[in-house]
Structures are given as C-alpha cells and as structure tokens.
C-alpha cells in the first residue's frame, strides 16, 4: 500500500471527482469531498515523512520504466508543495459547511464538489509527476476546473473573469506545451531527470533558448508574474468566497513550483543564471510586482481585490527569492510559498466570513465590524501583521531570508526596496483595520459573528501564521534543504 501512495495521491481525488458525479445529494457529496481532501492530506504527510527518512521516491506508473514510462518522482521539494496543496484543500473544503453563496441551481451542488476535487487532483498531479508532458496535462486539468469554479461566483462578472482567465491561461498552457516540444526536440525524452542529463549537451542551440523562453512566459502567465498578472485580480475577486481562498493559496504556488523545476532541475542554475543571466530580467519584474501590486492595493475598495493585488506583490517576493539563485534567496522564496498560502488562505477566508455575514465585500460596508465580528477581524489583523512582516509571524521569516540573501550578494538597494514595500503593506492593511475598528457600524442591521464552521478553518490558517512564525523548523528547515539540493553546491 505504501508503495502505491504516490499514485494514490492523484488517483484518489481524481476518481472521487467522478464518483461525486454519482452522489446527487448535496450534503453527502460535500462530506465525501471533505473526507477525500483529508485523505489526500494524510497521504501527503506520509509521503513527506517517507522522503525525509529514505530519500527520493520514484514510482513507475503502470510498471513502465522511465524514461519510457511516466515516473512520479517525489523529492523534498515535491513533498513540501504537496503538503501545502493538501493542507489548504483540507482546511478550505469544510469551511462554513458549504455556505459559499455559489450561483448554482439547487440540486446541482455535487457538480461543484466534482470540479473542486478535479482541481485538487490536478494540482497534486502537477506537483508529484516527474514527466514534463504529465505536468502539462495536469496543468490543463487544474486550469479547466478552476475556470469552472471561478465562473460559479455570485455576480455575472465572475463569468467574464473566468473567460479572461481561460484565454490567458490557455495561452500560457500552450506556451508551456511549445516549450516542452522544443525540449523534446533537443533531448528526445520527456522525463525530467533525463532531460536534466541531456539538455546540457544542447545548451548552445537556439532551440533550448527559445524553449526556456516559452516555458518561462507560459509559467509566468499562470504564476501572475508582473506584467502577466492581468487575470488575477478579477478572478480572485469574483470567484466564490472560499474558492478564492483555495486558488490564492494553491494555484500560484504550484505554478511557482513548476518554475523552480524548470529553472533548477531541467535547465540547471548555472545555465540560467550565469550564461543566460535570467535574473537581470526577473529581478526588475519582481520589484515592479512588489511595488505596483502593493501600491494598487492601497486604492482598492473591495477587500478581495485588495488581497488579490497584495498577492501579486507577494508573488513578486517569491520570484525575487528565486532570482537570487543563492541558498538564502531560494529558501526565502520557497518558505514564502508556505507562508503566503497560510496568510492569503486565511485572509480570503476572513473575506468569505464577512461576505456570509453582511453579503458584501466592499470595505466601506465593513465599518465597525471589529466590534460585531471580533474573532474574524482579529484574524484579519493577525494576517495583516503577517503580510507586513512583523516578527513572530511567518511573513517576517520570508522577509528575513530575502534580505539576508540581498545583503549577501551585495545588492543593498534591493534590500532597501524589499523593506520599503513592506511599509506599503502597512498602509493598505491599516487602512482596512481602521475602517473595521474605528468607524461606527450600521446601527439597524443585526450582524453576527461568523459561525464556528467558518471561524475554525480561518483560525487554523491564521494561527498557523503565528505558529510557523515561531517554529520555523518544519517550513524554513525543509525549504533550506530543498534549496541546498536544488542549487547543488552553488553558493
């Protein structure tokens, strides 16, 4: 059984999604989906433990030996990202007992859970596979199901947001496909380890260069790297409440994982950073993301939009960490994967709780909520403090590694810029906090605190930002080891 776990990690949610189609009852399908997500989390934890004890797991799908067969290859990086995805889905799915305000006709909710499970299986598949074309397939599974999930939002703008995301996402996915094709042209294989071995022979050729370009742009669209981020604010804003939480905390993380794999495993850090000098492009874009994202967030009136632009800035931090190509930099980027998933997941769940109570996501409508919904708003403050990077929270840990990495390389202006952009985060977080706590609420309407079913998942994630800000062994420790092995001895 243990040996089959890698396959089960993907098969479980995939077939459960199909089974969900047969379960027509709303509650039953929801409970089934929740149970499956918890099962996935259990599998991910076991896989992480196995990898930490015995090293890389290599699973041959169907018994066919790689590089001819598809291989599921789990090293510490995969296991780490698997945990993130599984954990977020396990926490978000039970949220609010499904009161998500979806625009689905009565009696069809099971379709929603079907799409959700498909999305989970796609995300887990991208992470776990060791075959590049498999990555593309699962990427498309994820994308398609997320387009559907987003389209189920309340307002009709969700449909347009989903459509824009579809167009941009498909272009991105197809670019990735072109990149894969060109890599196949040069190496004749689709297995990641094999490509890593054979690609250096072709480094001089233009095909490899163009392959890298297509791959990066394609993944960049999925990752919402500035300036390819256009789809993200609308998609996160108009998606159903907790779907935003789920996507914000997982989809971009997995795309980041793909970028890391492409750069460090397939092509190799030496080629990308020393020969191609890719960081010259990535660093300015990351800095722009950090500043433009935070600056635009300051002016948002819709809280989900604010969080979406904040996400763009946070993705900038992650790509900045990557572009340092040093152990501390990559650790910072990887640990921010986990930290941001916790922060943004929790904050979007707060927005979802608020939507449940007052049926609005406009910050102005949330006047005085600090008094009526104290626990929910306390979660927002804590999540906000983490976004700012106050020590004791996870945000601080990521910032620390990034600044240390910047100073190590002697790039002092970048260190200063990282700190200044944290200050921008203070502005947009505190603007919201002031409105929550210092304005008078609407006197007539009765606003109640969010139900426990919403508070518990929110506080699991937000409490996590505090816990993992102090106990960093699991997150930063793992990220460090991953960075070490990816950079293979490079400083």
């Amino acid at each position, binding site marked *: 059984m243990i040996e089959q776990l890698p396959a089960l990690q993907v098969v479980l949610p995939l077939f459960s999604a199909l089974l969900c189609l047969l379960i027509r009852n709303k509650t039953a399908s929801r409970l089934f989906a929740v149970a499956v997500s918890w099962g996935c989390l259990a599998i991910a934890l076991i896989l992480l433990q196995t990898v930490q004890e015995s090293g890389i797991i290599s699973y041959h799908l169907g018994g066919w030996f790689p590089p001819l067969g598809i291989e599921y290859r789990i090293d510490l990086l995969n296991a780490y990202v698997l945990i993130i995805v599984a954990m977020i889905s396990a926490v978000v799915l039970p949220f609010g007992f499904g009161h998500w305000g979806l625009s689905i006709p009565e009696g069809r909710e099971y379709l929603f859970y079907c799409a959700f499970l498909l999305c989970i299986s796609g995300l887990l598949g991208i992470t776990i596979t060791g075959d590049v074309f498999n990555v593309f397939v699962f990427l498309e599974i994820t994308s398609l199901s997320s387009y559907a999930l987003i389209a189920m939002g309340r307002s009709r703008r969700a449909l347009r947001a989903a459509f824009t995301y579809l167009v941009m996402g498909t272009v991105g996915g197809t670019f990735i496909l072109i990149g894969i094709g060109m890599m196949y042209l040069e190496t004749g294989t689709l297995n990641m380890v094999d490509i890593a071995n054979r690609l250096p022979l072709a480094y001089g050729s233009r095909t490899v260069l163009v392959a890298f370009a297509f791959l990066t742009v394609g993944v960049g669209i999925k990752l919402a790297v500035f300036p390819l981020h256009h789809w993200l604010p609308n998609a996160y804003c108009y998606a159903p409440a907790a779907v935003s939480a789920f996507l914000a905390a997982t989809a971009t993380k997995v795309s980041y994982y793909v970028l890391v794999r492409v750069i460090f495993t397939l092509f190799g850090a030496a080629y990308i950073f020393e020969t191609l000098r890719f960081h010259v492009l990535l660093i300015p874009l990351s800095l722009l993301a950090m500043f433009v994202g935070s600056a635009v967030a300051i002016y948002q009136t819709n809280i989900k939009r604010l969080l979406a632009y904040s996400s763009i800035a946070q993705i900038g931090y992650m790509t900045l960490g990557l572009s340092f190509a040093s152990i501390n930099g990559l650790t910072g980027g990887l640990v921010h994967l986990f930290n941001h998933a916790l922060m943004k997941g929790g904050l979007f769940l707060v927005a979802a709780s608020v939507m449940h109570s007052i049926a609005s996501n406009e910050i102005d409508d949330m006047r005085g909520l600090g008094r009526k919904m104290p626990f929910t708003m306390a979660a927002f403050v804590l999540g906000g403090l983490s976004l700012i990077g106050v020590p004791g929270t996870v945000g601080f*840990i990521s910032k620390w590694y990034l600044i240390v990495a910047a100073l190590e390389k002697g790039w002092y202006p970048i260190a200063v810029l990282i700190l200044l952009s944290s*200050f921008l985060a203070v502005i947009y977080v505190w603007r919201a906090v002031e409105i929550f706590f210092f304005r008078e609420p609407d006197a007539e309407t009765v606003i109640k605190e969010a139900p426990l079913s919403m508070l518990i998942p929110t506080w699991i994630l937000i409490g996590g930002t505090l816990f993992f800000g*102090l106990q960093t062994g699991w997150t930063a420790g793992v990220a460090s080891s991953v960075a070490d092995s990816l950079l293979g001895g490079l400083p």
Partner: protein
Amino acid sequence: MTPDQLIALSILSPAIGALAIAVIGRNDDGGHTPRDIMTIVATLFTFGFVVQLVGPVMAGDRPELSLFEILPGLAIAFKVEPLGMLFALVASGLWIPTSIYSFGYMRGHHEHHQTRFFVCFAIAIFAALGIAFARNLLTLFLFYELLTFSTYPLVTHAGSEKAVKAGRSYLGILVFTSVSFLLLAIVWTWQTTGTLEFRPGGIVDGHLEGTPVFLLLALFVFGTGKAALMPFHRWLPAAMVAPTPVSALLHAVAVVKAGVFTILKVIVYVFGIDFLTDGNYALWLCYAAGFTLISASLVALTKDNLKARLAYSTISQLSYIVLGAALATKTSVLGGGMHIVMHAMGKITLFFCAGAIMVASHKTEISDMKGIGRQMPFTMFAFFIASLSIIGLPPLGGAWSKWYLVLGALEAGQLVMVGVLVVSSLLNIAYLLPIVVNAFFYPAAEVQIGDGIKEAPIACVASLLVTASGCLILFLYPGFFLDLAQMIGEF
C-alpha cells in the same frame, strides 16, 4: 526559584495578567473592581519577580533563559544584565502607581473600553520586559514591534477622528523607521558579524570599519523611532491625544524608554564604547542629540497645551540619554542609564499631575491654570518637585543624572556638549517653572463655585504623591541605581 525561572516568570506575569484581565473584565467596559484588583495583582507579581532578579545581578550573575530558535542560529533568548535590569525595574515598578492612577482617572473621566485599556497596558509591559531582558537583537526587535502594536489601541483609545489620525502618525513613523532602518541594520549586523548577541565590547569590532560603521550606527539610531530623535519625533506629540495614564506610563516610561534603552544597548553591547571612541564614530550623534535637545526645549516653550509641552520636554530629555550614549564613555553611559530612572520618575509625576488637573477641573491649557494651586495644592506641589528633578536641581534625583552626564561630556572632551547641557537646563527652568509660579502665585482667573480644595480622585493624587516622593528618595539614596548603572558594559 532559579534565576532563569525568574526571568520567565517576570516576563510571563504581565502576559498572563493580560489574559486574566481580559477574561474577568470581558463583560464590563467601565469601572469594574474585580478586574482592577486583577490588574493590581498582575503588577505586584511582575514587580515581585523582577525585584528578585536584582540580587543575582548585583552579585555579578547574569541569568539566562533560551527559548526556541526561530531562524537557524537565532533564538528567542533572554539574559539579564545591569542596563536591562534597570529598565525592567523602572517599567515594572512604575506600572504599579500608574495602575492605581488609572483606576482613579478612568473612572473619574467615565472612560469607555476600560478592559481593553488595561489588557493592552499589560501586553505593553510584557513587551517592555521582553525588550529589557533580550539577549540578542532579534528578540529585542520582536518585542519592540510587539510594543508598537500593543500600544496602538492605547493611543487611539478615544476612537475619535483625532485619535485615529494620531494613531496613523504613531504607527506610521514607528513602523516605517523600524522596518526600513532598524531591521536593515539588524540583518546587516547578522550578515557581517555572524551573530546578533549582545556582548560587552560589542560585536562589530573586527568586522566593520570606516564608513559602513557610520551608516550602521545611523540605521540603528534612526531606526529606533521610539527614541524620538529628530526628525522622527512627531509621533510623540501626536500620541498625546491618548488618555493621560497612557501618556504617563508609555510615553514617559515604557515606550520612549524602550527606545533610548535600545540605543544605549546597541551602543554599549553591539558597537562597544571603546570601538566607537577609537574610530570617532559617534561624534555626529552627539550633535544630532544636542540639536534635538535644544530644539525640542525651544518648541516646548511655545506650547500652551500642558501635555504638548510635556511631550516636547520628553523628546528633549530622551536626547539626554542618547547624548549619554553617543559620548561613549563609561561615565556618560552611567549618566544615561541614571537618567532613564530619574526622568521616568519625574516625567511620570508631571503627566500624572496634568491628568489630575484635567479630571478635576477639565483644564488643558497652561494659561487657564492660573491660581490652580489653591484648589489642587497636592498636585501642584508634586508638579513642583518633579519639575525640579527634570531641571536637574538638588535635592531631587535628576541632579545626579545631569551631574554624571556633564562629567561624561568632560571625560569625552566635548565641551560643546557641556554647554548644551547647561543651556538646556536653563530652558527647562523656562518652560517648567512658570507653570508652578502661575499656579501658586496668581489669583484664579474666575471665581470658583465652592472654594477650597477640589483635588483629583484620591487614587490619582496618591499615585502622584508617591512618584514625587520617589524623585526625592532617588536623590537621597541613589546608590542602588548607581551601582547598577556602573556595571553597564561589563558582562
């Protein structure tokens, strides 16, 4: 009890106290005797534990307590040394009269949100003790930020438009300086020296020299916004919108003292006074501190609002301590440490008096306070005593700290600074004594209905008399603090 247990208990007492206060007082917003008793219990326990640490410290012991690591090589750790002991005694000791004063003030003023007030107070003391006992820069930074955020609800207590604006300025300046400058300085120190521990003789020596040292020192000093060194001083007068007990403890004792304590600690234990004098690295700081000293005193002269005048007086007095640190001799550091104690005692009395005047007669402007000495003789007498201490005249405690600061300036050969100290004492006389003179030697502006003594609530008057007598006692028996301060710099 072993010393390390004592450290844990002293730091935890206010934190647990905060919890207990929150629970007991959760349903009552106004005056609530069980909750107030709990507050007193918490203050007594805290002070009790802190005092027990004095014995070991005086004997040369340096109790330590190390908690977990949050970053590789960096743990949350505590170590009690003389300067920290001094600050801890001041903060925890003065918490007791402030709490008693607060009972009188808050009830007399019919304030709302009293539970929130006392809870945040306790958390702020918790943060102050964490700063006092911090063993490395990271722990200090963590509690420093906690202090900022826990005092924000206190500054904005009134909830009015003015309070919110003041809160914005407070948070804005403090977070901006700590994130942009202080954190950068900390990471830079970590990256160059490989450690963040406080050590006698400093940790920078041998790793940095020349211009980087100037820059690092500037980053540390300006990063400590709580020390109100110009131009980052505006938050102090803005925070005067808070209730007087807040101004008294936090802005005369805990918050600002945490700032100058940090600067003193950094200069003595991160840079090392010998290293600084050898390279003449801190001369510019003497001038910066001197400038703040004089200008703040001059501004204080122009202020008619009593609390505003006291605020600028505080800014000026803080620069005395910074000057003591910048002169970088044993005697000047001694003077700076003594001034932490003396100024705390004197300023807290002055603020208590200001608050008492406000509660008893609703007067805030000095020009309205003519003849008030008739109605409030005890208050104004205490005010007189405390003013003498601030001015630096015997037989009050302030004389000792001024004396040692002048000695320190002579020792460092900085005759200009001696001049500065003398001029500022004259300015102190100019802005403090007229208030007393007005109160006692002028007839009242209007005829008071019902002549005779109309003092503030007994709790307020008792507290201010206690602290005023403290000024006197500190003059007569300075030995204890002198001995402590003399040990600063020797671990």
